[in-house]
């Protein structure tokens, strides 16, 4: 790991000034991804600004019945919080399927948003990767791409976003609050991560000098009946091949409301708007779920090793919605 300067920011303003003064600096929260990337010589910040003591670790109910989550709330804390477990079970479940208990104890909400892809070629400095070295090419296109994107990819990049938490946040219409010396702004979670296009190195809508300060969950009665399903190669400590975050409200056998997002399929958490459109006001049956899943994945394309994910995603959507019907949020 390259030598770096370390400073600890005592308050948000100091942190924002520090990063504004040094464009190559990086904030460090839990460090569960950043430190790995620094060890791999992929991230090379000249200065690391420790923000772990900033007062951004509260989970509060908002006036409109939503929940505001500070950016430094630890993943394990968020997953265990009664407000989250009762009102947004999908979020609690999603977090608990991620990483390991030790990592969740360290990882922060803000850091989870900003974690980087697990593409094998991104991690190997000897490989071509447009995300790591723009213009160098993409070794994953014809290489090991079993875990890669089936939606929204480009010739430049086929990597996926690895977060589970973000998939739930996408389904829940969460908003990300970011702050810089220039002020505060809010970015809908679904717009926070970007598809690769020609610039896969630009992964999020956040500017280099901005700090994630909070994630806001709107009041969402439908989210009480929600669940997260992660499909992976081993029972724990593996990234999703496909994951599904879903919330469902059924009245008189008809879908009165639905939220659906997919993980492991694209460079961003994939909000399944097309499936939601088809499901709304449709009979709450497996047949409808199948139709919606097929429509959402109509534009999906497989690479040499990951075409199975298209079928897997269809099945995971149908299975998750079906379980919501029968078992609700219960594990």
């Amino acid at each position: 790991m390259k030598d770096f300067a370390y400073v600890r920011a005592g308050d948000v303003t100091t942190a924002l000034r520090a990063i504004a003064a040094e464009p190559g600096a990086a904030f460090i929260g839990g460090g569960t991804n950043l430190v790995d990337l620094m060890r791999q010589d992929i991230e090379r910040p000249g200065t690391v600004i420790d923000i772990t003591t900033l007062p951004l670790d509260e989970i509060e109910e908002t006036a409109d019945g939503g929940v505001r989550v500070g950016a430094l709330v630890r993943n394990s804390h968020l997953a265990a919080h009664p407000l989250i477990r009762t009102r947004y079970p999908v979020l609690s479940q999603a977090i608990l399927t991620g990483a390991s208990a030790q990592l969740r104890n360290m990882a922060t909400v803000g850091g989870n948003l900003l974690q980087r892809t697990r593409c094998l070629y991104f991690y190997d400095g000897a490989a071509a990767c447009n995300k790591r070295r723009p213009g160098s090419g993409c070794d994953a296109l014809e290489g090991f791409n079993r875990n890669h994107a089936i939606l929204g990819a480009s010739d430049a990049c086929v990597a996926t976003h690895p977060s589970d938490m973000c998939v739930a946040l996408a389904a829940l219409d969460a908003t990300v609050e970011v702050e810089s010396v220039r002020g505060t702004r809010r970015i809908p979670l679904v717009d926070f991560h970007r598809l690769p296009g020609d610039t896969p190195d630009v992964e999020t809508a956040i500017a280099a000098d901005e700090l994630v300060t909070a994630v806001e969950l709107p009041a969402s009665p439908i989210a009480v009946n929600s669940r997260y399903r992660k499909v992976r190669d081993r029972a724990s400590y593996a990234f999703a091949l496909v994951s599904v975050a879903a919330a469902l409200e059924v009245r008189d056998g008809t879908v009165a409301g639905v939220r659906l997002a997919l993980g492991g399929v694209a460079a961003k958490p994939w909000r399944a708007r097309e499936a939601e459109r088809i499901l709304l006001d449709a009979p709450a049956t497996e047949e409808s779920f199948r139709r919606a899943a097929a429509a959402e994945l109509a534009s999906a394309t497989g690479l040499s090793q990951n075409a199975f994910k298209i079928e897997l995603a269809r099945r995971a959507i149908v299975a998750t919605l079906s379980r919501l019907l029968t078992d609700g949020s219960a594990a």
Partner: protein
Amino acid sequence: MTLTQAQSPPRPGASGRLVGKPIDRVDGGAKTSGAARYAAEYPYPGLAYAALVHSTVARGRITGIETAGAAAVPGVLAVITHENAPAMKPAPPMSVLNLSSLATGTRVNYLNTDEVHWNGQPVAVVVAETQDAALHAATLVRVTYEEFAATVGFTAEEPNAKPQKSDMLQSGSASKGDAEAALAAAPVSVDLRFTTPQHNHNAIEPHATTAVWDGDRLTVHEGTQNVAWVRDHLAARFGIPAGSIRVISPYVGGAFGGKTMVWAGTILTVLAARVTGRPVRMMLTREGVYRTVGGRTPSAQRVALGAGADGRLTSLIHTSVTQVGRVGGGPEQVTSQSRHLYDAGAILVRQSLVELDTLSNTIMRAPGESIGTFALEAAVDELAYKLDLDPIEFRMRNEPERNPIDGKRFAHRMLREAYALGAERFGWSARTPEPGSMRDGRWLVGMGVASAYHPSWQLPANVTVRLSADGTVLVRCGFHEMGMGGATAQAQIAADALGVPFEAVRVEYGDSVLPTGPGAGGSGQTASVAASLLTACEKLKRSMLALARRSSGSPLRGRRLNGLRARDGGLWTEPGPGETYAAILARAGRPHLEVAVGSDTRVGAMVGQARFMAKFLRDRRRWMKAACGAQFCEVRVDPDTGEVRVSRWVGAFDVGTVINAKTAAAQLRGGIVMGIGMALSEETLVDPRNGRIMNPGLGEYHVPVHADIPPIDVCYLGDPDPTMPLGLIGVGEVGITGVAAAIANAVHHATGRRVRDLPITLDKLL
């Protein structure tokens, strides 16, 4: 994970006072308290740290190596490359007459050549004042290559495989009758192709070396499975006498075969210490282990079986293709079990090899049989289904009385009894045979079974045993402890043989200054040491009796050893008088009495080696010796996603006498855990474009996690093998064999799908 204690039905005469008991391992306290010191934990004044730079091409020549950037990092002491490294001698030629010549990891003379032979070969070593500086500076070394065409894809090269030559230790092919003709004539048959991927080592302790030169004397701290091989190999490479080298390895954090050979890290740490004149430590990164330590070969296998309508096998064909590196590695006995498991009328086994521009393959827990039993035992299950026979019944109909391939006697074989015991504990009779017929809620449930099989080995072991006047016993033997409980088992054996308390015995091991022990391999270490230890204890008792008989005051005067019993710290007539060892020594004015078995003089070593080969060949002519067992598993398969989860396991083993019920069960259970990884998730991703391992780490190379492992019930028959010391058969490897097949068979039972390509990932079941 819940664990059930291994149980064994009592068998008279199979064990002594302590042998067989679940005694806590003697090193447990040191390990759990952190007092145990591993190779990378020895402090030395002036210690420097080394890091490797790996090649990024599979084959080529270094045309430029830019080290200024690395050398400029504060704290860097040296950047060693082929341009400035001192000369080393090439690896000694391999010979079965000198077993330590087998220690060569690769034949590459590191940093003495500009040639690159595999993607990941070390091309430079950076030595620095700190670990961090060394690792960072290593990233700054810039290497340019002239690339040569390389052959790195196993699958593409498979058609060019060449038959494996036989040598004294291994045979590449064998046959009985005309198996192809018998297959063609068989009324019921299967002819199947199986494939398994490369696997890599992931011991909890990555390889580490601390090397210290004192003039021309060298001390090496190294986690190894063979201190003598490390010593001899380093002596050959650095041109100094083996007697000038001491290799110390009291604790090894897991090895599984990966610490048997001498790999680049060890040699280059010693080189770095010589260049810098400082004690040097190198801890390989996890990636470094993948790039410089070999793994298990990938394989392509054909298993064809023919049977009559009566369910008797008429033909068994098992052929394999595996990989070696052009710079090293060797054949793995993929078809070994197929020569011994079934009484087929005609048998053909044949192993072939491809040679690739990759790192050598190397030993990994049950090399050959782990993947060979997958193919054979999955094919047997398929044929049983075709015959509409219960897979256990089918096996019992084909259980041989003598070794099928050549008619030799089995030294010991209780596979029938293992199946009976396992089936009872597992509840096999509750299984309904139709695929997809068992469910638990939404889960498809499958139950599968397969045979486990692994030959037993015995190697030379030199041992000294000293009995002191205070009643304590010191056993010294340079054997190895990678977590198996070897020292505990040998203390139990010595305490029983001498009739002293367990606590009175101290065992010294893991140091090349000790009498040369066996390497930890082939599941042979415990038996090998036990054989010499028992002889030594017998000698010691004779010497002790002789000493006592010299005194007119001894109640043992005029007694013969075979009329005495060793108990209560001495020799006693039954039920009459006797004497403690302490009393005998005190009367004789001796502080202690010591005996030796085997000799480490040059002549003694040659005699030992010759004796070993003679015994090995004699035994092989007379008997087939092996551990065997029956693996039972239950899996649950998600019908929507194809996810497979193992929900229950019973392993019933015939491993002769069990020395320590606790550590033996742990070994067998560990083998099963490793087999579950092999079956469901482990796969080294070698990019076929450039031979580069793309998942060199625990994040993306999926060993099982706790949540993947169900309760594992391990049981054994406890019946001694009359041809082995104390009747024991090694337990280190048999546990992994048959596991992948049992799972594949259970997956078929759950889903109706046959997956013949490991690992059984969910995409293969969609």
